[in-house]
């Protein structure tokens, strides 16, 4: 069930000189809803800010039910997200959650690879944790422009092997995630989130090799509730809202030209 809850910034840290921020939020009252699934997102009302009008859809980075914390990893893409990153401890934010359909649980057996690019690594952390909790051994293939853009590696390592690629070669394999040796080996299931060209490249590989593959889309969104019909994507079952039918889609549902 969707809820609007007030949350308090329990801790806030920035990465790469403010390019990214990690907010750990706790409900002002009560406990976090128990039904937040990996790959879902939340709609955050941006604090007072001249340039941002709508809520910002942010994927669930992690849910720590023991600490009653929701983690949001945010990239400074514009005024709204910059304003979120600038939040300080104690600040309160209105959050609507949980929204959309998250990642599917893969069939048992076979390698499960979670492929992320840039801030798109965010939802893979919680998915990795849930996979591990359920007896899977997820592997992470994470790519970014430079070492500073590779986020939260220590956290990912808690849930499975981490393979990294940087475009400038500062860390891991030089190049894109698609060039990682881990991508060349047998894979049964991919969950992917990142820039569209990167997701399309991954989808192309998955399709060619018959790998089951889900991607998480980031279409421009207003309500996040399926009411405004702004964030549509063409699929095999028509033009649907990414906010309710997604953000996670199996690549076979999409009309992508690969």
């Amino acid at each position, binding site marked *: 069930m969707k809820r609007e809850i007030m949350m308090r910034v329990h801790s806030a840290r920035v990465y790469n000189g403010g390019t990214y921020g990690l907010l750990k939020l706790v409900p002002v009252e009560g406990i976090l809803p128990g039904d937040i699934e990996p790959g879902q997102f939340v709609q955050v009302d941006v604090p007072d800010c001249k340039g*941002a*009008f709508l809520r910002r859809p942010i994927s669930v980075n992690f849910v720590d039910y023991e600490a009653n914390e929701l983690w949001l990893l945010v990239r400074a893409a514009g005024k709204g997200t910059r304003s979120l990153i600038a939040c300080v401890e104690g600040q309160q934010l209105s959050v609507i959650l949980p929204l959309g359909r998250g990642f599917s649980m893969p069939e048992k057996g076979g390698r499960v690879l979670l492929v992320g690019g840039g801030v798109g690594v965010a939802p893979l952390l919680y998915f990795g944790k849930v996979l591990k909790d359920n007896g899977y051994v997820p592997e992470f293939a994470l790519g970014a422009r430079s070492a500073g853009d590779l986020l939260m590696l220590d956290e990912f390592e808690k849930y499975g092997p981490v393979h990294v690629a940087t475009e400038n070669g500062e860390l891991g394999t030089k190049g894109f995630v698609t060039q990682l040796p881990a991508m060349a080996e047998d894979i049964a299931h991919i969950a992917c989130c990142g820039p569209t060209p990167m997701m399309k490249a991954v989808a192309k590989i998955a399709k060619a090799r018959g790998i089951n593959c889900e991607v998480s889309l980031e279409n421009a969104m207003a309500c996040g509730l399926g009411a405004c019909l702004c964030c549509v994507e063409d699929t095999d079952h028509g033009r649907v809202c990414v906010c309710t039918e997604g953000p996670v889609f199996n690549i076979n549902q999409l009309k992508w030209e690969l």
Partner: protein
Amino acid sequence: MGTLSVNIGGLELQNPVLTASGTFGYGEEYEDLMNVNSLGGIIVKGTTLLPREGNPGPRMAETPAGMLNAVGLQNKGVDYFIDHIYPRIAEKFSTEIIVNVAGSTVADYEKVCEKLAPLPRIRAIEVNISCPNVKQGGMAFGTTTAGAAEVTRAVRKAWPKTVIMKLSPNVTSIVDIAKAVEAEGADCVSLINTLMGMAIDVERRRPYLSTITGGLSGPAVKPVAVRMVWQVAKAVGIPVIGLGGIASTRDALEFIMAGATAIQIGTANFIDPSISEKVAKGLAEYCAANGLKSITEIRGII
């Protein structure tokens, strides 16, 4: 009759707060987050004779204190609405359900009206002659007095209950359009639909919207909407429903003081999903605090 009850051209509402078509889905999208039945009514998504898939994405761009949309009347058609959506929401909601009706031809409007007419819970339709996001019909009907009159005449024949004509602000004289639809028997007018706008992604050197232009809504347009409501309310005898950037009780009062009998909340639903319920409560509190026996006492006091 309660302090907040108002009459919009024959239809009595328990309070003046409606939700604007296209911003509130069929009400169900919001039911987890608020009490839909606390409202005067909901106006559901623009409904056409045949299913429409609307415009391709991207359909949305944020602008200063507002947003552009280019949805283009995506809906599953009137038959699907009658068979699958109406039974569910008629069961679920006790508040008024108003259907926004759109079409490419006058005959389209007529046929949709005829199909909806037997539904007992639909006691009013809002006729969209002002959608800036479709190529045929839509705004074309709403920007000339002759076009607006023609649609009104046809709908008036096909629909025996309350007819609300939704007017476009993209005209030289919205008063002339309002007078034209009043003369053809409209029971009520609602205004404003979106202003036609455009935004460019400078980095990529292309428009944000697939359709290049789209409809501007949100607080940015409120001064234009208040002005038009004030002009129209002085010029016509039928009730005026005001909308355009309403995001608070204060904003709703501004429209009522400008002459609106009822108001619609649109884009603000996206930011605060329970804002419509809050405004309904806020109006009741305002009446109590100011000793009003009826909200109509401040209607059009400017």
